């Protein structure tokens, strides 16, 4: 049995906003050929028919304005290139066309293909190369934020493909409720940045169970004091605002927020865990993005077993119903732990339903009331007793002492 798994007591998930895998980590193909990033063969047609290649010209801010469309119909265009045929196949050829629809500017629409150079993102790219990077982590739905984040909390969006408030349908419960109601009792928390940024899970969690929430300052303090719950979910700062302690720049990386502010935030979370030796040895940190934000990625999202819900043609806005049987666009995902071998590249398919799926399986074992999507989602940490424990990413017998440090 891997020692890291024996020691594991905390799972921390940090979910950032709206960036695709190729956009953030595509440059790493040049550093490690196993990472499925950007190559010279990739392209997308613009509205004149010219082929646009991905280029390492992404900027931290000011480039993706207006915010690229990532509602269901736009993502359908991005994935299927505009085809509505019954036998259509996804080809990832509609990103430039989709962005053109917003400003009608051919030159501007090509910026949706831009990606960051490795040196631009020292935090995210270092963590990807030092720990485990996922080649196949997809958003749960080819759609926007709220329904995708719902999958991270509940393992389903209860039939929603949009930004509307959703009702939790029994018997499914949030991962937090499952944990705090378990016997023996487990602990769980959502740390939003502060009350001015708040949470994106307002209607069900904040409204009905505000005691589940803490702030980023409390997270930092809980790390120092060794009081981190068994499972916690971190939310970045979603808006620019002033506080008594000064200016708080949005660090969620949602276009057009500054990407470097997000880098700093990720580094701060990582370093705070790392600086407490007991916590560092007993924590796995997953850094993942909720969806691609309309930005180019080249990997076709795979089909998946359907959920128990169907979104009507009216709700999808495409003229076609959706049975939750295809994943969304690929997003960056990195698992961090000193028990993971350096430079691990994971090729199994995951989506956000893997988050409650993994946490439930690891802390609670069997749990019946789960969505079909969650039941079918792969887990990124196998419990000790699992017959599949041999494929665990936390596979080292000795804890690493060569892990990177950031100056935050």
């Amino acid at each position, binding site marked *: 049995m891997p020692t890291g798994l024996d020691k594991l007591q905390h799972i921390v998930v940090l979910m950032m906003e709206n960036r695709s895998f190729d956009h953030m980590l595509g440059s790493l193909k040049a550093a490690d050929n196993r990472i499925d990033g950007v190559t010279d063969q990739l392209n997308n047609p613009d509205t004149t028919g010219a082929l646009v290649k991905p280029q390492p010209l992404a900027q931290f801010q000011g480039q993706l304005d207006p915010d690229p469309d990532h509602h269901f119909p736009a993502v359908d265009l991005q994935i299927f290139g505009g085809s509505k045929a019954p036998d259509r196949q996804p080809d990832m050829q509609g990103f430039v066309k989709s962005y053109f629809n917003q400003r009608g500017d051919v030159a501007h629409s090509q910026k949706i293909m831009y990606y960051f150079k490795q040196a631009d993102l020292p935090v995210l790219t*270092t963590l990807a190369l030092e720990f485990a990077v996922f080649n196949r982590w997809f958003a749960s739905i080819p759609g*926007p934020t709220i329904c995708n984040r719902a999958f991270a909390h509940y393992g389903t969006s209860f039939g929603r493909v949009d930004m509307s408030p959703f009702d939790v349908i029994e018997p499914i419960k949030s991962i937090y409720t499952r944990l705090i109601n378990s016997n023996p009792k487990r602990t769980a928390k959502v740390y939003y940045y502060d009350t001015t940024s708040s949470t994106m899970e*307002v*209607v069900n969690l904040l409204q009905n169970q505000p005691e589940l929430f803490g702030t980023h300052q409390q997270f930092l303090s809980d790390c120092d004091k060794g009081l981190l719950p068994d499972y916690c979910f971190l939310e970045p700062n979603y808006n620019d605002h002033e506080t008594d302690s000064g200016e708080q720049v*949005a660090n969620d990386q949602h276009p057009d927020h500054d990407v470097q*502010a997000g880098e700093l935030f990720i580094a701060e979370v990582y370093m705070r865990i790392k600086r407490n030796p007991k916590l560092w040895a007993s924590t796995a940190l997953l850094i993942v993005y909720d969806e691609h934000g309309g930005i180019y990625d080249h990997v076709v999202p795979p089909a998946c077993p359907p959920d128990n819900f169907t979104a009507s043609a009216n709700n999808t806005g495409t003229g076609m119903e959706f049975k939750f049987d295809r994943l969304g666009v690929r997003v960056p995902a990195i698992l961090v732990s000193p028990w993971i071998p350096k430079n691990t590249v994971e090729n199994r398919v995951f989506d956000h339903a893997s988050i409650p799926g993994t946490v439930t399986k690891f802390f609670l074992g069997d749990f019946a009331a789960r969505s079909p999507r969650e039941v079918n989602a792969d887990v990124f940490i196998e419990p000790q007793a699992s017959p599949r424990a041999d494929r665990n990413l936390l596979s080292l017998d000795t804890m690493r002492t060569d892990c990177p440090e950031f100056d935050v």
Partner: protein
Amino acid sequence: MALIHVPRPSPKAMNPNRPVSSLLLTQVEHLQHAERRLPLRYRTEIYTHAIKTEAEAAAYIDQVTKAIHEAHADAAGRRAQRPKPKGGRKTRGAAERPKRKLRKKVSTPRKKKTPHKK
């Protein structure tokens, strides 16, 4: 391993007057949904349709989030202060429940109605 430098965001990154994004407008809409379920005294007087910038959205998000926490804390405080019923509210299992004394049923024969004398 050498310490890796993390570049700080440009001072120009901060722009509270940035037009509010559809994500923040959604968050405002969800908070408004939650606000409508709060008792009147906790509600803000902010007209959300007038929100145009991030700073305005942030101000509303802050007030409603605090109000939700305050309303729940007050409700919890009131529940704690409520006088407990005598003997507590312990619910005991059926096995522990003291048996009620069974009253001996005494059947008293009903008096026969005597017909009114005319």
